[in-house]
């Protein structure tokens, strides 16, 4: 019996001796495997505002508009809408956009639809759902991060206030069905539902960037039934964990802490109605000149309905080293390059021979993003209330931060040192612009610091080194080392900067509550327009006033005025001049220490088809395809377990022990 058990255990050990983290049955399926560094905080499209979450919400919800997958510069194409609407000028400078929805597009199957019709598993996407989602964004109780973005829609703020007032006045009001509450608040006058399939958005002033927002999940139609049904009560899911959309995939499994599975949505309009030939639901037939040689215009795919994948699986992977190792083993399909392994993967800017032999592909791009250290301008020491003293302090601190060195130490030299918020590829970026405060100059920095009254870094009030706190959203030791780099640079000025690290979610909370002094953050463009970067410093969007994305709480009247003009201007000399002046203000005021624009090296395995690096956080899963047969073959080849050490260990132990046993037994005779 014991022998049998031992045998069974041994056999099961042998069987378990594989590093494949997925069930063997999934080998033949077209599954795209992706790591997720933190469980998604929310998949509510009105609230979710981070790149990783958008990869999920972006394919679960179908948007009215989309970007062309291959064309650069980015081009809008219609999604659920039949065409990209044009601005219609109204009297008093108002502007209207009319969206016409495709008729007959369905949501994914979901039990929530029983709320509307007891026998229904799904229903049609209608114009009211677009209006409903916009009202949700305006709903103050949701605290949507983009609430201010749509403030130009007529009657937007008034709607918010009415809703809040109604809820305040009568606690029972908040218990009503959510769409009834919105109706009672009178809806948003600027969002007019015209019939079943048309919705018109009226803006009180021109805002050409508005259309870009309709490519993002924020504005995707959401069925009220789902919001009502998934309320977290009585064991039901929360809507933020249970998205219900009309996109190409739908969530079939949501284990917050371990995995999220998206299956192909059979109701997706691209699959159900291939005859529509909706441009956003078929693989494009044209692209940039370079796309065809790179196999992105393979005739096998061109014109075929999307998506190609059976499934997208996300695994929570908190540690990036195991994640990268799994990528190398073939268990993730794409990956950034781990800084630690850069030298092995990349040789003189190209894929190393070893990796190329493994059939890997390297895609490089400079992301439309900017990483920066920001000062909270509301702060009494580093902020604007400290006047000239604060400005000089910021200038001094900016002068010693060496982003090239940072990139060298921590990013294998990847990254373009940033001179202003605008990254390459965005209108207004000028490669020859040099920001005088972003050139390392210790002597000048010390002078400025002394001029600010902190000679040698000493705070005259305490007689000790000036104490500042550097608030960060990364508690890992790995992150700490990075931040320590900046702290060390500032300590050359004699400043005592303390790292106050919390996790990312908590950090966001801190930011939301204006409880920070110096922070480090990055911004990835939502859409390819300078407005999308320069608005990060627009006074009207200050975090402290409107919970806007201006985390530095920078407010400069001249800048704000220039911003408004720049925003509506057409790309051209006049706009460039405005941008230059704004840049000069930032150069002097230093609300930010611009660090770098990321240079993105993404690795793909050979079995992944149709990938194109998108700087914007576009959900790509729709276009990508997998060759599962090639993948299985490669994986098997790469992951032969090395068994001899086990044998050697056993043999070694035996060799050590057996003589002893033999002697012992002999002596016992």
């Amino acid at each position: 019996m014991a022998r049998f058990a031992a045998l069974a255990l041994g056999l099961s050990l042998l069987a378990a001796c594989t590093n494949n983290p997925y069930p063997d049955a999934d080998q033949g399926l077209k599954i795209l495997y992706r790591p997720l560094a933190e469980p998604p905080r929310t998949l509510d499209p009105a609230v979710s505002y981070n790149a990783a979450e958008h990869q999920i919400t972006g394919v679960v919800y179908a948007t009215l508009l989309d970007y062309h997958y291959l064309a650069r510069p980015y081009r809008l194409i219609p999604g659920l809408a039949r065409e990209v609407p044009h601005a219609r000028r109204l009297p008093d400078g108002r502007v209207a956009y009319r969206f016409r929805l495709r008729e007959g597009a369905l949501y994914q199957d979901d039990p929530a639809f029983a709320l509307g019709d007891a026998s229904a598993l799904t229903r049609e996407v209608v114009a009211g759902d677009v209006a409903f989602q916009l009202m949700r964004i305006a709903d103050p109780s949701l605290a949507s991060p983009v609430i201010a973005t749509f403030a130009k829609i007529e009657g937007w703020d008034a709607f918010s206030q009415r809703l809040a007032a109604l809820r305040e006045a009568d606690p029972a009001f908040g218990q009503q069905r959510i769409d009834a509450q919105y109706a009672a608040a009178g809806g948003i006058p600027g969002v007019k539902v015209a019939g079943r399939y048309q919705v018109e958005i009226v803006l009180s002033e021109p805002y050409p960037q508005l259309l870009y927002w309709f490519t993002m999940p924020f504005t995707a139609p959401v069925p009220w039934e789902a919001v009502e049904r998934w309320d977290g009560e009585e064991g039901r899911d929360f809507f933020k964990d249970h998205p219900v959309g009309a996109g190409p995939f739908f969530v079939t499994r949501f284990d917050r802490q371990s995995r999220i599975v998206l299956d192909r949505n059979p109701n997706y309009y691209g699959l159900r109605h291939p005859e529509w030939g909706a441009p956003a639901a078929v693989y494009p037939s044209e692209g940039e000149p370079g796309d065809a040689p790179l196999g992105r215009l393979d005739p096998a795919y061109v014109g075929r309905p999307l998506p190609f994948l059976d499934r997208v699986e996300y695994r929570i992977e908190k540690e990036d080293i195991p994640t990268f190792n799994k990528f190398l083993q073939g268990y993730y399909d794409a990956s950034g390059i781990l800084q630690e392994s850069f030298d092995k993967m990349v040789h003189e800017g190209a894929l190393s021979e070893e990796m190329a032999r493994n059939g890997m592909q390297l895609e490089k791009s400079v992301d439309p993003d900017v990483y920066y250290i920001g000062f909270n301008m509301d702060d009494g020491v580093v902020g604007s209330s400290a006047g000239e003293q604060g400005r000089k302090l910021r200038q001094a601190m900016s002068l010693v931060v060496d982003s090239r060195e940072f990139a060298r130490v921590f990013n294998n030299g990847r990254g373009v040192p940033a001179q202003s918020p605008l990254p390459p590829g965005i209108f207004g970026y000028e490669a020859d612009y040099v920001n005088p405060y972003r050139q390392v100059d210790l002597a000048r920095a010390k002078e400025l610091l002394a001029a600010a009254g902190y000679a040698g870094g000493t705070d005259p009030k305490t007689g000790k080194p000036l104490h500042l706190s550097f608030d960060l959203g990364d508690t890992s030791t790995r992150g700490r080392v990075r931040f320590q780099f900046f702290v060390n640079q500032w300590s050359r000025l004699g400043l005592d900067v303390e790292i106050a690290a919390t996790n990312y979610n908590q950090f966001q909370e801190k930011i939301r509550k204006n409880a920070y002094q110096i922070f480090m953050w990055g911004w990835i463009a939502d859409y390819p327009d300078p407005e999308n970067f320069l608005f990060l410093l627009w006074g009207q969007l200050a975090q402290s006033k409107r919970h806007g994305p201006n985390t530095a709480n920078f407010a400069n009247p001249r800048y704000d005025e220039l911003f408004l003009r720049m925003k509506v201007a057409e790309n051209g000399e006049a706009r460039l001049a405005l941008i230059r002046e704004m840049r000069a203000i930032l150069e002097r005021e230093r609300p930010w220490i611009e660090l770098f624009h990321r240079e993105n090296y993404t690795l793909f395995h050979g079995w992944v088809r149709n990938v194109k690096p998108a700087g914007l956080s576009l959900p790509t899963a729709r276009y990508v395809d997998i060759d599962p047969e090639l993948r299985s073959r490669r994986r098997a080849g790469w992951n032969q377990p090395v068994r001899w050490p086990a044998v050697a260990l056993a043999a070694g132990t035996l060799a050590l022990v057996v003589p002893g046993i033999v002697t012992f037994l002999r002596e016992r005779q």
Partner: protein
Amino acid sequence: MSVEGHVLANAVIALLLAACAGLAVVIHRSELWRAAAVELWRRRPIALLVVAVYLVIAALDSISWVGGGEVGEGGDVLAMHQPRSLIDRLFPLDFDEKSYSAPLASVEFYGGDPLDHPGRHLLGTDILGRDVLHVMLDGTRIALLVGGFTSLLVIPLALLVGVSAGYFGKRIDDVAFFVMSVLMSIPDLLLLIALIMAMGRGPLQVCIAMGVTSWVGFCRIVRGETFKLRELDYVEAARALGVSDLKLIWRHILPNLMHLVVITFVLTFSGLVLSEAILSYLGIGIDGSWGQMIDQARDELARDPIIWWNLAAASAALFGLILAVNFVGDAVRDVLDPRTLRERQ
């Protein structure tokens, strides 16, 4: 550590040294303890020497003052305002490189730029260019602080509570026993975490939290042994003769507990240091500890070619101390108490 902090640390170290000296005198005076010490030395001379080396390093690293030393242009000005210990002063003030360099290398690990101090970093430098040997030596103080300072907090308290509970019994014992069973019913690490989270992070907090968790074990042993001692004939006889309780405890109970205290102290020590490593991983350990070094270095194993010296230095330092203490602990137990404790371990 704040500017006042180093003064406090100096005072504590002076106190510790005095305590050690006092202890040495006591041991020297008592025949029994002297014999035990000699026996211990006979059994484990190497382990004892190793422990002594760690102790000396920690002591040297605890005596610090501000000032002295100059930094060159572009150097770390802040460092001049911070207290530096005797160990720190073994290294030049501006000894950092830019980033990684291998042990004794003369160029940087990546890029191959020449170092500022070629060939002088015995154990290389870490990602921020700090000398690994220096960082490692600094960790010694933390490790011994965790083990030693904690015990210093715990032993008197455990003796006080344990002896009074065991000796007087009744209500006192009921209360003490209840407190102990409450503390014992919370898994150690959770209790540690809860305490540190409630008190906030920092070296003192970590020591206190560790003290509370290890206090129970000490106290339980002391209480049990006091129970036994109280029932002994000569103690009962002394009590019958009207010797006061305090005197009895002082003369008959405490001296007979000391061997248990010593054994438990040595046996808990390694556990404390190892727990700190775990806390470091959780981000609530003490800055500059070996645990933190190990935690930082775990990424470096993924590098290609791998960077091993940081992890190796911290692990070796930790391993050496724990191993030596474990060996000493076994010997102490065998010498002082051949039986009683083994069953409870």
